């Protein structure tokens, strides 16, 4: 999130697209409701009429997987009707940048598509900016046909409301109303807020969907302002925290790219390739070296490249979730830790993933319950005697049974105290990790293939007299400290690339620091433990509540909340403002407000050109050459789609990730066998794969059984009554569940055809108190080109009475 949940109360118009906070993020609804109470308008764009939609002023239904067309419809409307925020676009985005003449786009494909090692990829050099020496060529009048703005204008002009309506199935009048309403936020001083979640991301072009939301927000001047932003409502409660700490295979902590052996053989290579000259990322060496220092301690010296060699490196191949399971199925992986994860239910094409587990020699499940993954060897329909995998189950303490921090979508790192002791022999994950590491190190004492990193890793978390490792020590390491005296650092600005500082996660630097200037004894605690309720700005920034990375900044890119001269677009909602002499800062400024050397205020003219300090160009990207499938999003159909792409001949994202064999089963476009557009969704009563909630009787009582929602029209056509047993099938399998007949899904008219939608929650499995079919036995094994997120939210199915 650029902003945070509490900030929602400052919004004028919400565009909630592909997110259902009423079920998945109920506390977000609190703030949305507050804004509504003050007159905010709510637009909900979803394939189902959701509980969130029940609170909307405008509900726009759309066919799963057509969000880019929808968002482009709004952008086109804004540009055609001159409703975008011109001054913002000119000053704070790359709209004026001239793009290389080699950039081209025709019939759904960008220039530079080529085949490499049997795979399609783009040569993104073709999309570079035009340069004069070091400087990018610009046209502040936005008239040059090669400038980003003109390219964008041409690109989105194909998405007029009529076309969009035909693609998405959204009635044209509703579309127009959405456009007119949301574009009111293009006016300076108005805040539009795009809230998205899995309805946007879980597509074979999910990252481009996200891009489209960001572009819309830039166009309307909605980023960096109170009540605005692109707000990804992330997984709960700590998906943000785990991605910060590099849960994703292609990162190391703090969103540094994971070194790839062929690309970054040495530290020098890594730093040269990965460090841009401009932007805050130019400090990357400090982050990486401090991290290495934190990991390898005294062993890490300048001479030995701070043990860079010891860092595990990628081989350049995909090792995302789907790739791992494909490898397991291919017998390439011997052992697996399923640590707080339940792929047997949550993974795409879970039936195949369950089968893959049988190929493992051993599997360790570390979990609060014996979930479906832990019990895969005795799942319905298999004979345990035929499964050779040795399975271990380590009981883990639940979140209330241990202390630690979690990080919410708004980047707030909040400490949580332990409420009760874990039952039986359950242990905190930290305890388990500690013992496993120590045991491994013990093994390596007697030698091994490459024992150095393991034997020399900093692992000093023991707390004398306690069973549990010392959380303070772990937190200190993550926060960062000066090597000489072990003093906790309060800002990553103090990180060094000479080995004098150590820091496990640069963006968290300061989260464990105690503010020396703080007078209130209750707030004289590590930042993540603070619970100060003071909010001088009245904007819900609550600077003394926990810690918001980076640097306790609540709203990132906040320089954009004021015009180039430093006058706030909205004088009532001031994040930062130039009063003629210095900056008034309600939030921690996301720009150089003070010169670090002279401590003098930096005047607005000097800060206006780089409000996006993490980007080399310093300005928001309407056009982003870093994206795998093109610098601009383009509407493609989900890999399984009921219709042909109306926009171009290119049916699917050419770079979508596909797998082979067992994982390659797909229905053809407009399949007769699987005629309905399917998508999956969450319910408030259940959490994810349901391990936790299907073991809670009170929640089982609320939502006992798996079901599939269909429209009354489809139900009528198929003679299905509410509560009937139905069989839902896809090219990959079938499941049995109850029929839920509600007008919350409606047939959509797509280019003259009527498309029925089948919506499936995915919270059931064969373990726990309440059992039911697994929706993911139907989902396709298809990944987004940039992130490999599976296409959970757009595939084809059939449904019939059981």
């Amino acid at each position, binding site marked *: 999130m650029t902003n945070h949940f509490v900030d929602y109360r400052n919004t004028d118009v919400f565009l909630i697209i592909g997110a259902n906070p009423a079920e998945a993020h109920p*506390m977000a*609804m*609190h703030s949305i409701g*507050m804004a509504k109470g003050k007159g905010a308008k709510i637009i909900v764009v979803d394939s189902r009429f959701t509980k*969130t939609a029940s609170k909307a002023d405008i509900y726009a239904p759309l066919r799963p997987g057509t969000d880019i067309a929808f968002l482009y419809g709004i952008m086109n409307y804004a540009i055609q009707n001159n409703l975008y925020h011109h001054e913002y676009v000119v000053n704070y985005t790359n709209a004026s940048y001239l793009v290389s003449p080699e950039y081209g786009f025709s019939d759904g494909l960008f220039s530079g598509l080529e085949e490499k090692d049997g795979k399609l990829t783009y040569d993104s050099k073709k999309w570079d900016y035009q340069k004069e020496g070091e400087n990018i060529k610009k046209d502040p009048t936005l008239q040059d046909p090669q400038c980003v703005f003109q390219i964008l204008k041409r690109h989105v002009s194909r998405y007029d409301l009529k076309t969009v309506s035909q693609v998405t199935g959204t009635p044209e009048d509703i579309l127009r109303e959405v456009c007119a309403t949301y574009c009111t936020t293009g006016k300076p001083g108005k805040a539009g807020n795009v809230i998205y979640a899995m309805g946007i991301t879980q597509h074979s072009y999910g990252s481009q969907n996200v891009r489209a939301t960001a572009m819309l927000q830039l166009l309307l001047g909605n980023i960096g302002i109170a009540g605005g932003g692109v707000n990804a409502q992330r997984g709960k409660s700590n998906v943000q925290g785990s991605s910060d700490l590099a849960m994703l295979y292609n990162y190391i902590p703090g969103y540094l790219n994971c070194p790839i052996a062929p690309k970054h053989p040495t530290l020098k290579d890594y730093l040269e390739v990965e460090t841009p000259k401009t932007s805050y990322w130019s400090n990357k060496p400090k982050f990486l070296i401090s991290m290495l220092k934190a990991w390898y301690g005294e062993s890490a010296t300048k001479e030995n490249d701070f043990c860079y060699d010891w860092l595990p490196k990628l081989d350049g191949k995909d090792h995302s979730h789907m790739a791992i399971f494909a490898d397991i199925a291919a017998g390439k992986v011997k052992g697996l830790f399923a640590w707080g994860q339940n792929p047997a239910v949550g993974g795409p094409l879970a039936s195949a993933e369950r089968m893959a587990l049988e190929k493992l020699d051993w599997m360790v499940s570390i979990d609060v319950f014996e979930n479906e993954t832990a019990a895969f060897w005795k799942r319905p329909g298999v004979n345990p005697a035929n499964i050779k995998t040795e399975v271990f189950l380590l009981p883990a303490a639940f979140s209330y049974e241990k202390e630690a921090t979690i990080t919410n979508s708004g980047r707030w790192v909040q400490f949580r105290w332990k409420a009760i002791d874990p039952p039986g022999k359950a242990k905190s994950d930290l305890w388990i990790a500690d013992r496993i590491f120590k045991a491994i190190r013990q093994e390596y004492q007697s030698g091994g293939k490459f024992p150095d990193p393991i034997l020399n890793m900093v692992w000093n978390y023991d707390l004398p007299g306690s069973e549990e490792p010392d959380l303070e020590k772990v937190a200190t390491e993550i926060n960062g400290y000066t090597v000489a005296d072990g003093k906790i650092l309060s800002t990553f600005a103090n990180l060094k690339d000479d080995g004098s500082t150590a820091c496990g996660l640069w963006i968290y630097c300061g989260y464990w620091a105690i503010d020396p200037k703080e007078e209130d004894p209750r707030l004289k605690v590590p930042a993540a433990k603070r619970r100060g309720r003071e909010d001088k700005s009245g904007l819900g920034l609550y600077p003394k509540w926990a810690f918001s990375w980076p640097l306790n900044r609540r709203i990132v890119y906040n320089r954009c909340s004021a015009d180039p001269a430093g006058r706030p677009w909205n004088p009532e909602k001031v994040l930062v403002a130039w009063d003629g002499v210095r900056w008034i800062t309600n939030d921690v400024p996301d720009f150089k407000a003070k010169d670090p050397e002279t401590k003098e205020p930096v005047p607005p003219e000097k800060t206006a050109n780089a409000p996006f300090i993490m980007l080399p160009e310093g300005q928001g990207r309407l056009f982003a050459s870093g994206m795998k499938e093109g610098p601009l999003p383009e509407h493609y159909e989900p890999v399984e789609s009921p219709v042909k792409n109306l926009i171009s001949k290119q049916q699917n994202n050419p770079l979508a990730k596909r797998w082979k064999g067992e994982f390659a089963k797909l229905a053809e476009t407009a399949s007769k066998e699987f005629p309905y557009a399917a998508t999956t969704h969450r319910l408030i009563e259940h959490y994810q794969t349901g391990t936790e909630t299907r073991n809670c009787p009170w929640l089982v009582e609320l939502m*006992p059984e798996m079901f599939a929602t269909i429209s009354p029209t489809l139900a009528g056509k198929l003679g299905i009554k509410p509560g009937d047993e139905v069989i839902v099938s896809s090219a990959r399998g079938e499941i049995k569940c109850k029929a*839920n007949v509600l007008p919350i899904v409606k047939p959509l008219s797509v280019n003259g055809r009527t498309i029925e939608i089948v919506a499936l929650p995915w919270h059931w499995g064969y373990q726990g108190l309440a059992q039911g079919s697994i929706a993911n036995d139907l989902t396709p094994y298809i990944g987004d080109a940039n992130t490999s997120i599976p296409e959970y939210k757009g595939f084809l199915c059939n449904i019939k009475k059981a």
Partner: protein
Amino acid sequence: MPKGVLVDVTRCFGCRSCQVACKQWNDIPATPTTFNNSWDNPPELNAYNWTRVEYHLIEKDNQIKWRFVKRQCMHCEEPACESACFTHSFVKTKEGPVIYKPTELKQDFCVGCRYCMIACPFNIPKFEWDKALPFLRKCRFCNDRLHEGLEPACVAACPSGALKFGEKEELLAEARQRIDANPAYIKHIYGEKEYGGTSWLYLSDVPFEEIGFKTGVSEKPIPLYSWEVLRWTPYIFVGWGAILTALYFYTKRRAEVHAEEDMYTAVETMEEEKK
């Protein structure tokens, strides 16, 4: 000061935290349920479900409205359950809650006749049908929490502001203010006048009868109805007794004289006496 809760249906988004919080605070076990097409399991209030969020999906002119309405005991100002109970097991406390003494105060006089269930205009009290010596159960307005100065568990859990706890008078004022400020509201505070008023009040933007409320109901407290018939008891007792005695002695004499009088006269006499 009497407390109340203002339930603003326009704010509720059906998260049902209140439902779970109620069970948690009051230590109520889960009941077995099966698939429910409208999603609002358990399907109705019972001894183990004192509150329930009803989901009302209203489709009109191709527009869908989905409203979520938390229901529980209304904690009537003059409760029918109290007046119906001949063992005085339900009482309205001065703080607002209508409590059931056998469980709340361990004053167990209830015979389990279930007349309270017949009497309650909102069909609230529920019976432990599965117990050998069942109690009546219903929302207790978290009486214990109120005594500790806390808001009810359901209110504390509500993320939307749909539930607001406070002094009833202040809540009424706030409700009026919300209605005045926003034309979307139905101009009616449900519970302000119904059956003489209730401690739980409702605001809505769809007509109350479309979301399961009985509208156009009596504004007279139900206890008044029974009182109006009961207050005649002593007079009937004495009056009817006197008539009967008089008749007895009068007709006794006559009977001795005309042993075989025709019945019609008797009927006529009776008619006269009745009037």
